[in-house]
């Protein structure tokens, strides 16, 4: 999985993938499929996808800055661990992440800098409780113009 692959594709005239996510059916739970032109580009739509499973989360209050940084041997597990951290931020601290910057994401390291605000429970619409971000069908693969990741969350 390389950053160079995506650059190569854009040079050959393949449309570079716009960052996006979709929620797909998965038995008793929910799947999130994420696309972006680069590996770091996957982080922002993956975050939005997780929140979309939970509901429509309104924010309130002061912004605080935060950072997620982890090293590892597997980009898929780094992505999963990051999303598990975002879920914990919501479940334990009732805060939502936004304004994400991902300076590094490769097979060995993921660093994300973001802002957080409190979730406004009065104005939020909740769909379902996400218990966990699982390891099931966890994958990141190159596609023409970028990358695609799949993550399954336990409802």
């Amino acid at each position, binding site marked *: 999985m390389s950053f160079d692959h995506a650059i190569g594709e854009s040079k050959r005239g393949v449309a570079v993938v716009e960052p996006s996510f979709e929620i797909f*059916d998965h*038995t*008793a739970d929910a799947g999130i499929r994420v696309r972006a032109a680069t590996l770091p580009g996957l982080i922002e739509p993956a975050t939005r996808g997780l929140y979309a499973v939970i*509901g429509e989360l309104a924010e309130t209050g002061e912004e605080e800055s935060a950072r997620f940084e982890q090293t590892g041997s597997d980009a898929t*597990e780094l992505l999963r661990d990051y999303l598990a951290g975002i879920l*914990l931020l919501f479940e334990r601290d009732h805060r939502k992440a936004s304004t994400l910057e991902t300076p590094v994401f490769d097979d060995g390291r993921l660093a994300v800098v973001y802002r957080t605000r409190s979730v406004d429970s009065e104005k939020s619409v909740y*769909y379902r409780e996400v*218990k966990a971000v699982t*390891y099931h069908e966890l994958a990141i693969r190159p596609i023409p113009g970028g990358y695609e990741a799949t993550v399954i969350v336990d409802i």
Partner: protein
Amino acid sequence: MSEKYTGPLERVDETRWRIPRSYKAGMRVDGLIYADEALVAAIKEDKSPEQVANVATLPGIVKYSLAMPDIHWGYGFCIGGVAATDPEQGGVISPGGVGYDINCGVRLLRSTLTVDDVQPRLKQLVDRLFETIPCGVGKGGVVKFARKELAALMEQGSRFVVSRGFGWDSDLEATEAHGCIPKARPDLVSDTAYDRGVDQCGTLGSGNHFLEVQFVDHVDDEKAAKALGLEKGTITVMIHSGSRGLGYQVCEDSLKDLRDVPRKYGIELPDKQLVCAPVHSSEGQRYLGAMRAAANFAWCNRQVMTHLAREVFADVFEKPAERMGMHLVYDVAHNIAKMEPYEVDGQERELCVHRKGATRAFPPGHAELADRYRPLGQPVLVPGDMGRFSYVLIGQPGSMEHTFGSSCHGAGRRLSRGAAIRASKGRSIAKELLARGVIARARGRTGLEEEQPDAYKDVINVVDVLHTAGISRKVARLKPIGVIKG
């Protein structure tokens, strides 16, 4: 979405289907699925039988990798999976064989109220239950425990909250393991898990968790129903919930801790989600200790909600819950791993029994049952769906012989959440339930749609298989009239 299963399923008899160990490299035992012909056709629609075959590769697995008739796709283990491993033979413990929601389970309260007593105030009752029992995303409980109290709660189980006024002493005897698995290790539960648990004891959660007001619609076994206090036409209350964020975090932490452990012990796994450790290893013991602590939290969770439900009934019907006979029939875990003695090849061995979406079903005479249940056998509570029925069964001797004392846990999903929502377009599930005589209240916007009756298989098909197989016998059928969901 999962593909279909195309491997072998050899019919053993009218209720059992075998996956031979020759099917897949590494299988140490056969797989055995309890189902009838009709259920088998549906079972092959996803790859859950493949998961049964994968579990059969676990070190130390004894006799069979089993699945109950409500089998469907899970993480590592299928839902409905049962597997016993022998620690003395290098047997492993796997968090995938328990699930994220450690000790998700069900309890049932009975009463002397009848449908005629409740119907005139049913809407008020359901509304009050909905207001009083915290449910849904982000809903904290009415009870908060300091860290030291949480640690004591996880060590003592239900006894801790009952001693603080959240229930009756008699509730303990009517709870599996008396509401406490010994040798729990709250010291092995992470700070993050504590943080998530601090205000979640006594909360329902969301998804397929529910509190249901029901009535005894049909009695199959008059003697057993009478012994359990389940008279036809009387009102019952069923609560389905688990260990909440604390338990999910214990599983999350354990899966991370165990990531590289199979390699350390030379264990090859066909599926990363079967991550495991030998029971006798330090890693295995750490998971077991933390899991027990989370399981004890779950029993306290259901116990506090029991107390809250009794208070609501007392308020609505203007008499104490004791005078309405609101006793606990039983409480069962259906996501758990427990050390239990079984006879294997003529020798008694202490096995690690994983039940992932499966319920303990001890027969009459079992030493672990409280005195009042020992002559009868252990009640097995099987929720169906909120439109049709739930069931009360009794454990039979066949369970000890064939399924490591286990039975089914529910109906099993038929439709994915997305498919259920699409099928709801243009419909009001709440109105449809009302037409069936069920008042439903849900906090989540998509809760009723995702959990509608059509999303589930018919529980009668599931319980009939195990009744025929001599695993658990039907006692009574319960029909919902009110339900609250997160």
